[in-house]
Each structure stands twice: as C-alpha cells, then as structure tokens.
C-alpha cells in the first residue's frame, strides 16, 4: 500500500523530482553506469542510456506513463465491464447469452495476442495501446460483476425493491451495484497490475508507447543490444515493472482477504 502511494506520488510529481529532462541527450556521457560504480557520475544517479539520457529521470517519468495507462485502463474497462456485467446478471436470458458469449470469445484469445491483434488493426501508439489493453481487461470485470449480481439477485432487498415497483435502472444502480462492489475493487487492483504488465509488454514489442517516450517496456527493448556492456540499463526498468506489478497484486490479495473472506485464496 505504502509503496503504491509512494509510486503514485512519484508519478504525479515526476517533473519536480526528476533531476533531468527524460528525453534530453547528454551526448558526452553515453551509457554511464550508476553512481555507486567507480566509473559512475553523481550527476546521473542510476546512470544513463545509449543516447546519454538520464536513467533515473526516465524511470520517474516512466512511473507516470505506466500508472497513467493503468488508471485509464482500469477506469474504462471497469466502467464498461460493470455495466455489461450488471445487464447480463440482471436481465439474464438473451442479453446474458449475448454478453457472456462475447466475453467467452474474448477470453479464447490469449491476452497479449488479443492486444496485438487490436493494435494491428488500429496501428501502434499510446491511445491504441490503452484501447487494446482495456479490451483485454474487459472480460475479467464483466464476469466478476455478472456473478456478483447473480448472487445478489435472489436476496430479499432486491425482491423488496421489485415489490414496491422500483424501476430496473434504480434496482440495478442503486440497489445491486453498491452491494456488488467489493469483488470489483479487488479486481480493479489486480486489473491494474495486468494493465501495467500488458502495456509494458506492448511497449517492449514496439507496438505500444513509442520510442522516445520514457516508458519502462520501451526502455527495456532499447537496452537489449547493450545487455553485455551495460547490464544496469536492462535491470532497472524491468525491476520497476516487477515491483509495481507485485505491489498491486499484493494489494489485490490483501483487499480480497479483508473484503471478502469467502474468496480467500482462490
């Protein structure tokens, strides 16, 4: 939790915290090792890359990009997924069959492959990467909302609301939705980590965020040719991805245990 807050703070304050501009080229110091290495330079704490850009600044700005993408993706797919799940769970019948069918279809394709297919149609870029990753995250949200709604449907307060003649919209959004939110919160946290992982993978493959941007996946693929001579260039961005993803997974598991003891340790 604390770690996520810290990373979020870093992401928000990126321009203030970063010692250098993330895309500025310091061409007289290329591939500088981190400062603790005798060859390092205190001006570039975590070294610099093959074009002389400051690694620390790029990592800090990268947090901004990754968390930004994660947040957008979770918001989009969380909203759309909730509505689709609500509709499917509440009305059942044909609507449920159509929505569940579509979701099963999406799940039939492996996540990164599905994202790649969407990118291949839309073309690479940040916006399209967000769209693609949101699509990938959609089935999870929809499924969880649907089963939460189905579980709530039989309960007395829903029957009571129906008995006093409340409208479908009112029952769905005012009665059922607030009561099915806890699994969605868990899913949002886990979805965040998936979104960051998937968008970094797309960036790594050159299909997501594009080159000069200091995205962690892009930094990794830039660093690949220098793995032998400058291993820190490969180590640091990946470590950032791992730590952030791990933090969100830990938070998701913690939330699951505290919000819903029934779901403990799936």
């Amino acid at each position, binding site marked *: 939790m604390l770690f996520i807050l810290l990373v979020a703070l870093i992401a928000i304050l990126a321009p203030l915290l970063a010692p250098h501009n993330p895309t500025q080229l310091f061409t007289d110091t290329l591939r500088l090792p981190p400062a603790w290495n005798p060859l390092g330079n205190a001006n570039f704490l975590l070294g610099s890359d093959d074009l002389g850009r400051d690694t620390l600044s790029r990592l800090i700005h990268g947090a901004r990009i990754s968390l930004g993408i994660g947040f957008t993706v979770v918001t989009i797919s969380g909203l759309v997924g909730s509505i689709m799940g609500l509709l499917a769970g509440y009305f059942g019948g044909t609507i449920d069959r159509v929505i569940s*069918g579509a979701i*099963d*279809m999406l*799940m*039939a*394709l*492996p*996540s*990164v*492959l599905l994202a*790649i*297919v969407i*990118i*291949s*149609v839309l*073309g690479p870029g940040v916006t399209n990467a967000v769209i693609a990753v949101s699509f990938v995250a959609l089935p999870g949200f929809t499924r969880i909302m649907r089963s939460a709604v189905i579980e709530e449907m039989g309960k007395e307060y829903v029957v009571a609301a129906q008995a006093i003649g409340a409208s479908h919209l009112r029952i769905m959004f005012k009665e059922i939705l607030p009561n099915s939110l806890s699994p969605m919160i868990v899913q949002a946290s886990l979805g965040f*980590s998936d979104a960051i*992982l998937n968008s*970094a*993978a797309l960036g*790594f*493959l*050159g*299909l997501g965020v594009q080159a000069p941007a200091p995205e962690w*996946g892009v930094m*990794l693929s830039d660093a*690949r040719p220098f*793995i*032998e001579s400058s*291993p820190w260039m*490969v*180590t640091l*961005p*990946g*470590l950032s*991805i*791992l730590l952030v*993803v*791990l933090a969100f*997974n*830990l938070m998701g*598991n913690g939330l699951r245990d505290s919000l819903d003891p029934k779901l403990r*340790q*799936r």
Partner: protein
Amino acid sequence: MIYFFQILFKKLVGTLPTLLIISLLSFMLIRMVPGDPVLLLLGERGADPAVYAQMQQRLGLDLPWMTQYWNYLSNAISGDLGRSIISKTPVLTEFMARFPATLELGMTSMIIAIILGLPLGIVAAIKRGTILDHLLMTGSLVGYSMPIFWWGLILILIFSVNLGLTPVAGRISIIYDIPTVTGFLTIDSLLSEEGFDAFKSTLQHLVLPAIAMGTIPLAVIARMTRSALLEVLGQEYITAARARGIPPWRVILLHALKNAMIPIITVIGLMVGSIITGAILTETIFSWPGIGKWMVASINARDYPVIQGGILLIASMIVLINNLVDLTYSILNPRASIGPNRK
C-alpha cells in the same frame, strides 16, 4: 463409455458457434484495417488500374461480402488460409513449420512448472502458516508478477553473459544440420548422425526460454496446489484416515492429493492461453523460431494474411483445448454436471 462419446460430441458441436465467430472476426480483420486491402497487397506503388482490377477479382473482393465470407470459410476448412505477402508461402505451411518449436518450448516449460510447482505447493500446504509457507507464497506472487520479457533478459544476463553456460538465441548451434523428422529438435537431434552432441546443444538452447516461460505457470500451479490441498485437508475423510493411523505422507500424497488434483489439472489445462502469450514474448527475446515470433514479425511487417490465418489457427486451438479441459474435468469429477443447467 457411450455416455463419454455423447458428451464429447455435444462439446464439439458446442464449440462450432464460437469457431464460426472467430472465423468471422478473422475474416473481418483484414477489412477493418484502414486503407484498401488490394493496395495493401500490391504495395503502395504499382496500382495500375488493370492490375488492380485483376487483383480485386483474384481476391474475390468484387463479390458481395457474404459470398466472400463463404469462400473464405470453405477455403479455411480445406486448409487454404492464403499466402504470406512477404514470403509467398501458404500460411498453413508456415504455421506447421513453426508450430513444433513452440510446442516443444511450451511443453518443456509446463513440465518444469509442474515438476517444481506441485511439490512446492504441497510443502506450503503441509507447513501452513510457517515462515517457509510465507516465503513460498511470497515467492510465487513474485513469480506471478514477473514481466517475463525482462525475466528472460535477466536469465540471459546471468547464465549466458556472466557465466557463459548457455547460448543466447536460437534452437540449436548452427554447426549442426538436423533433418526434420518430428519437428521436435530434442527428438530429431537424437535421431541424427551427430546424436548426443546435437541433443546437448538443443537442451542448452532450450533451458533458458523454458524457465522464462514456465515461471508464471509455476507460480500459479504452486498457489493452486496449496489452496486445493488445504481445502481437502480440512475434510472429514482425511481426519478419519489419520485416525486410522495411516502415515501422514500417505494421507497427503494418496488420499488428499487425489481429490485436490481436479482443480489443479483444470488450471493447468486452462493455462494454454497464457502459454501462447508467454511464447510471444519469450520467443521474441530468445529468437526462438516459433509461432509467437512469427506473429510479432508479421504484425510489424503488416503481413495481413499471416496475421489473419495465425489468429484463426491459434484461437481455434485454444477453444478446442479449453473444451477438452472441461471434458476431462467432468470425467475426473462426476459430480460436475454437463448440460444446459450448468452455471
């Protein structure tokens, strides 16, 4: 047994609508791309009107789209998925040439994941609540969160660059020329003249990508084994077995694990999808000549017939496998019903 074939038949029929929609989507893929598919195939230049019309006719793009889809579908069923724009080879041939490499890598990584994941999960369940359990579960969460495209690079850094134990890329050292028999280099190399030396080279090439790809499945299997086993261990028949004085290891390995296996096997089966995702990233890092690298390369080259055919083949494969897993599940666990009432 008749019952079994009835279910099998029902399941296969049940996948038909899904497969149809997948084929429709892959058919539409090339048409959703901005721009004219004919120009795409001909290249930006060379749009001589006569050639253009000829190409349009050859592709059948002047026909109504229902007819086009019908043609596409009947061609696909007879195994004709079109030709790659770049290599001009039929898509199916290209797929078949690369598929064994991915299958070999995927199977090796799953074997690693199962061999390590099952015991680790069992140990964590037995030592529940101890430091060892916490360590194992934290470790598995780290494994689960691992960006494998980075993990692969780190493995290369440690084992290839620093220790010099393994090669960096490819399936086998280029000094060997192994005739293709099965497509599995581990088998083909043993059959070849170079025999054991070539086999050793194959294994050296195989081990790092397999570890990279197996990490996430390993973590999932370990967690699943632990929780499935814990659930079973709380049941009365286990207490009864213990009360009868059956040795603890026997209770866990024979009595408990037998019932805990059902969810574990399901999870393993359903991991086929994530194996393909892993293959895309792992193969890109290790220059492994399988379908993952092939798909990424064709997307970068905008080779649409290949993307289209590849998606169709991969998605159909996953749908079929998922249904087979469902089927195994219902055989292993007769209580799970198959039919319209199933939630």
